[in-house]
């Protein structure tokens, strides 16, 4: 009862603070503080509810329990992370995005292929490609190669569509200017069209980060060596060790955010000229 009461009080106090903070003139510190307080409040309420209602840890472990499990099983989690995120997702991501990028540049010279591939690519991007996972596991075995293969086909089409669209992003004026400079095709590509395509390419890269992790994790549900995030999640769920599952989910969340954040930082460095990246003055 005390815990429930504490949760309620904590929630009300934090909400008041947030209301007060968000009524202040906007600044960077406030726009960071408000969501942080909100997130911490959620975790606090979660902890209080679990303790207050004495929820069975098999159903929902408290955040503190998850944190302890996380801290004590870091070696296992690290091995899983390397197996799934680095070997499976990252290698597949690089191969898939690289292949899609090269394909896009190659078909860029043939408007016929573009008009055919763009609708098909858009169509395929909406399909449940994740279903290819069992087939890839059959073809490439249980280890990370099959996970990388799933990731490759998952990221290929979103990346292709975005790059092709990006390469069309220049307008007539700009292309005419390049012509008046007597620029040839490679020069136009390198100095005008690729830089102009960068915002689109990074959009594709960012979408692909999440897809890559999802692909690698779900592919492990269909068979994997005895390490990996997807393997750990499915086996620990079977053993009803939910604190370990949650610890693995924390790892997945961290890996996803870091991956996305890394690409976003790279984007900032490459497309500093784009209106969405310029600082407000």
């Amino acid at each position, binding site marked *: 009862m005390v815990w429930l009461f504490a949760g309620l009080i904590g929630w009300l106090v934090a909400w008041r603070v947030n209301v007060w*903070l968000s009524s202040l003139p906007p600044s960077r510190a406030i726009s960071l503080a408000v969501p942080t307080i*909100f997130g911490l409040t959620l975790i606090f309420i979660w902890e209080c509810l679990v303790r207050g209602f004495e929820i069975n840890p098999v159903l929902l472990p408290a955040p503190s329990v998850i944190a302890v499990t996380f801290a004590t099983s870091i070696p296992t989690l690290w091995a899983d992370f390397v197996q799934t995120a680095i070997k499976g997702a990252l290698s597949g991501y690089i191969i898939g995005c690289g292949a899609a990028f090269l394909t896009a540049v190659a078909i860029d010279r043939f408007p016929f292929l573009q008009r055919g591939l763009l609708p098909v690519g858009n*169509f395929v991007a909406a399909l449940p490609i994740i279903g290819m996972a069992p087939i890839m596991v059959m073809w490439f075995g249980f280890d990370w190669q099959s996970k990388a293969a799933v990731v490759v086909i998952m990221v290929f089409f979103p990346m292709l569509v975005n790059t092709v669209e990006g390469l069309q992003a220049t307008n007539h004026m700009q292309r005419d200017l390049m012509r008046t400079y007597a620029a040839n095709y490679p020069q136009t590509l390198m100095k005008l069209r690729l830089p102009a395509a960068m915002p689109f390419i990074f959009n594709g890269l960012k979408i692909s980060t999440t897809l890559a992790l999802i692909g690698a994790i779900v592919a492990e549900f269909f068979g994997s060596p005895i390490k990996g995030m997807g393997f750990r999640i499915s086996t620990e769920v079977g053993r009803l060790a939910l604190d370990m599952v949650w610890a693995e989910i924390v790892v997945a*969340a961290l890996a996803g955010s870091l991956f996305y954040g890394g690409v976003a930082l790279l984007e900032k460095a490459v497309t500093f000229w784009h209106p969405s990246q310029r600082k407000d003055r």
Partner: protein
Amino acid sequence: MKNLFPILTVVAAIFALWYAGSVALNAPWAHDKAQRAGIELTTKELIADTMAQKKPKLPPPHQVGAEIWKTTGAMVAKGRAFSKRSLIYHSWITLSATLLGFALGTGFGILLSVGIVYNRTMDMSVMPWVIASQTIPILAIAPMIIVVLNAIGISGLLPKAIISMYLSFFPIVVGMVKGLRSPDHMMVDQMKTWSASKGQEFWKLRLPSSMPFLFPSLKIAMAASLVGAIVGELPTGAVAGLGARLLGGSYYGQTIQIWSALITAAVLAATLVGIIGMIQKVVLKRMGMA
């Protein structure tokens, strides 16, 4: 329609690649068989064999097509459209979870986006988490949701629908927040000069002008929802649904079954997204936006 010819070319190329791939991938097994039987295969026999294996590595399109027909059309003809061996039955299981999850996700997504647009505190505290949550592989928690809900006695349609809801919810929030904020100052001021109430401003200005943003989000949400339902069927251990067909097929090496489930899922996704596209066309036309 001017794109029809290029699209058909690309589709034909995909089929050609598919056939070539199935010959290449199935050939080792055909050679193996021939060697054990002690016969030499001519190229023609080899290709014929790769087209008609029982458990091919990559089944050629016509085998998949035949399997789909056998488990849908032929079942209907026999009057057993909803028997457990029919893909219609499995598709329906998946489809119902998808649609329920999609409806829930859309409902909650729109409600949350209204809250975010009208409440500054909510905007500042919830919106960053909505965006951050897109970077997290949410699908990873699917098995847990299924098992936990099973443990407290909820099974069947709802757990899968909850996963679908979770996946379809975020595109809707992001799209609708953008859409509800799309009227510019001029339009909002115009509503003010007419002394419109908050409710009137919402119903007559913000909601209508969010429609062009809503439909693309709906399409993404529908595709995500189907993926959620399929993945949600995996941990329950291959009982029913397209995901179960995938898992069952992978357990027993029934590649043709996997591919037919996969193609059915693709057709389902395309149909659902296509229906939304059609509604979009009609609605936007009636509203004078397209």
